[in-house]
Structures are given as C-alpha cells and as structure tokens.
C-alpha cells in the first residue's frame, strides 16, 4: 500500500515540479521586462506596468487562476484552453507566470535602484553603452542584492503551486486528496494528504540550500 501511495504522490509531485520550473523560467525574464517597463521614462508604458503590478499583487492568486481558466471560455463561447490536464496546466502556467513576474519585477526594481548611481556614471564616463552598463556593471550587483528576497519568493512559489488544485490540476495535493475517496484501489486513506507536506518540506530544503550557496558565492564582493 505504501509504495502504491508513494507512486501516486510522486506522479503528482512531478506535475508540481513542472509547474514550479515553468513558472520560474517564464517569470524570471518577464519580471525583468515589467521592471524595465515600470522604470521607463515613457510614462504611458510606466503607468500601464505599475497598474498591472498593482492589480496582480492586489488580488488573490486563487482568484486569478479562476479568472484565467474560466473567463476566456465564457467570453469567447469556447474555452481557448485545450481540454484535459494539458489545458489546465497551460492555464495554471499563464496565471503563475503573470503573478510571479509582477512580484519579481518589484524585487528587481529594488535591486537595480539599490546599486549606487556612481556605478552607472563610472560606466558612462568610460564610454560604455546602456546595455553594456547593465550587463557588465549593474547586473551582478543587482543579483547579489536580490538573492535574499528572491529566496523568500521562490520558496513561496513552491507552496503556491498547490493552489492549482482548485482547477483540478493533478499535482501532489490533488493526488493525496484522491485517497480520501478512492484512488489506485484504496479508499478513505487520510495520511497520504498529510504526507504531501514531506514533499514540500524536502524540496524547499533543497531550494534553500541552493540559494544559500549562491548567496555565499557572491560574498566575495561588497
């Protein structure tokens, strides 16, 4: 019985991991784009970006998941999401990427604004282009500054993936909960649901370790 349950939970956790990595892969760069947008001197774009960040950060992710999954179908007569698990995953990924990109963008903004202005000026007087200054001067100093707040956000993301349960994405919580009724020939099992906590805990332990190492690696300069 134990092995059967673990097998089912593993399968669910694979979906959790997939959502986690896809979100990171999408939100890390998208956050940078939104960050630039919210700092640009082209004010319409700046206000648009800040408005989006305000809305996304100001409303629950759970609500955003519902809206992104259901509203397009209601408006367009037919849901744009493919049927079945792949469609649910896609909707989840879009909601998570958008949500986390907004949080990341604010962290990036803090990181960039935390780099002393003199660094940019030093690059300017040495004839560097704006892009060169960002890539060769600001970027690493920004990364160093954002690792601690990012760690927080990434750990939250690991746990937030469980929200995708509400549109029935078959992640680890869903897999654990299934045993309350019937799954893989077992009925009324309570412990698999609680056991999912071990998965989050172990994975977050790994994430913490990894980010701690990155933080240490950037310790060589101040």
């Amino acid at each position: 019985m134990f092995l059967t349950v673990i097998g089912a939970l593993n399968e669910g956790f694979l979906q959790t991991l997939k959502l986690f990595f896809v979100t990171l892969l999408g939100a890390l760069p998208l956050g940078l784009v939104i960050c630039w947008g919210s700092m640009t001197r082209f004010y319409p774009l700046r206000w648009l970006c800040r408005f989006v960040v305000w809305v996304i950060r100001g409303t629950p992710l759970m609500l955003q998941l519902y809206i992104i999954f259901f509203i397009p179908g209601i408006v367009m007569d037919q849901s744009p999401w493919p049927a079945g698990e792949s469609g649910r995953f896609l909707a989840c990924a879009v909601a998570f990427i958008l949500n986390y990109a907004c949080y990341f963008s604010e962290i990036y903004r803090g990181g960039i604004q935390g780099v002393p202005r003199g660094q940019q000026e030093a690059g300017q007087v040495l004839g560097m282009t704006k892009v060169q200054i960002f890539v060769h001067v600001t970027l690493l100093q920004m990364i160093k500054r954002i690792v601690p707040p990012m760690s927080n956000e990434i750990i939250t993301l690991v746990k937030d993936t469980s929200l995708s349960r509400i549109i029935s994405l078959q992640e680890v919580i869903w897999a654990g909960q299934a045993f309350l009724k019937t799954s893989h020939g077992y009925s009324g099992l309570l412990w698999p649901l609680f056991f999912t906590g071990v998965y989050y805990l172990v994975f977050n332990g790994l994430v913490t370790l990894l980010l701690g190492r990155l933080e240490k690696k950037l310790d060589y300069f101040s």
Partner: protein
Amino acid sequence: MAILEVNNLEKHFGATRVLEDISFDLEQGKALAIIGSSGSGKTTLLRCLNFLETPDQGTISVGGNIIFDAANHRSQTDAEIRKKRLHFGMVFQSFNLFPQYTALKNVTLAKELLARERPDFKSNKKAILEEIQQEGLELLTKMGLEQRASHYPNQLSGGQQQRVAIARALALKPDILCFDEPTSALDPELTGEVLRVIRGLVEQKTTMIIVTHEMAFARDVADEVMFMDKGVIVERGPARSVIENPQEERTQQFLAGY
C-alpha cells in the same frame, strides 16, 4: 593652442542657476585646479565636461573641434556622445570602482568592451585582449599597485582604490583627465599617496582639471588655479599667485579659511 575651450556654459537645476557664463581654456599638458566652497558649481562643471550633466547653454571644444553645443545637442545619437565623452576621463570622489571585478579588470573592462567594436576583433581576439591586459598591468605598476592586480576593491584601502580608479581613467587615454575631489573621502595618510600619484601625472604633462580642497597641493602642483563661487568664475591665474596673493575679495575671504 588650447586643447580645451569652454564657452558660455550655463546650467540650471530647476530654477536654481548652478553655472553661469563659464568660459575658460586649458593648454595641452597643463594642470588646472578648481577651488571654491561646496555648492559653488565646481563638481557640476566637471560633470558637464564629462556629459554626466547636460549644460543648458554654451559650447565645449577639444582640440579645436566642438564636441558639445547646447544648441544642437539633442540631435546627437548615443553613439556620437559616447565617442566624444572619451576625450575626458573622470576620477570620482567616491572612487566608484566596480566591486565585482579585480583591480586589473576594473582597469581593462571598458577597453575590452571598446575593442569589440574593432573590425579585426574577431580574427585577432586573443592578441588584442592580451595587449589590453598588459597595458592594464603596466598602468597598475605605474600606480604602485602591481601586487594588488588580482585584489577586489573591498580588499584595498581607500588610497589604493583611488589609484586603481586613476589607472582605470588613464586606460582609455583621455585628452583631459578630470578629478572630482579625489582625496575628500580619504584620511590624511592615504591622501598623501593619491596626491603623489597625481603629482607624478603632472610631471608627465598630463592635461588635467582637478577639483580640490587641498590648497597647498593646488598651489604646489597645479599650473593654474581657478576660484569659483555661486556658479561663476571669480578669479583665475597662475597657481601660486592666486593662492598666495588673491586679487578678488571673495577669493581672499575663501582662502582666509585655510
């Protein structure tokens, strides 16, 4: 002939006029010290020369070519501005070294990036980068820092950091090297080592503009001294005569404080 000519430069921050009708020139190989109290516009003037601030009026010429004209500045592309600002080098009060790079990399980075624009960069990459490294090491040696080439800024004293910053500015071989209060962030002991380096540059006939509060240094090392107050040039002349025998009342008042 004057290598630098500044004509009628004017700069406002909002309603405040920071620079008013600034005109002066500088001969090749001469060192000009700018003195004056805080808020007199000295630093803003240097920042205008380096295009860190955009003057509202006036022109700046280097070697007879106008490199800045407030009248048509907006039509310049970023690339043109970037090229023109390389006539000037800048050493900041707070060093502004790049903390994530070694002393040597601080010196060579900009040159490496510029080298990428050379047409023969791809075919000659290794030799070009090696040459830049070599030049960087020579500059650090000149600054007495050959032992510190692989140190990071946070492993260096303030005086060493400022000397790296001087090497970094020299690496691009600017026509005119600007110093913005290069020793104001240093204690007296470290001030000495930086001033010695600057003195050495004067002896090698580097064209320089030095904003400083070190009156004795300005008197002994600079060729000329310019005193600024409230955004205007009050007095200018040979270093020793301005510092020891100022003609204008405001200069006398200022120097009486030292």
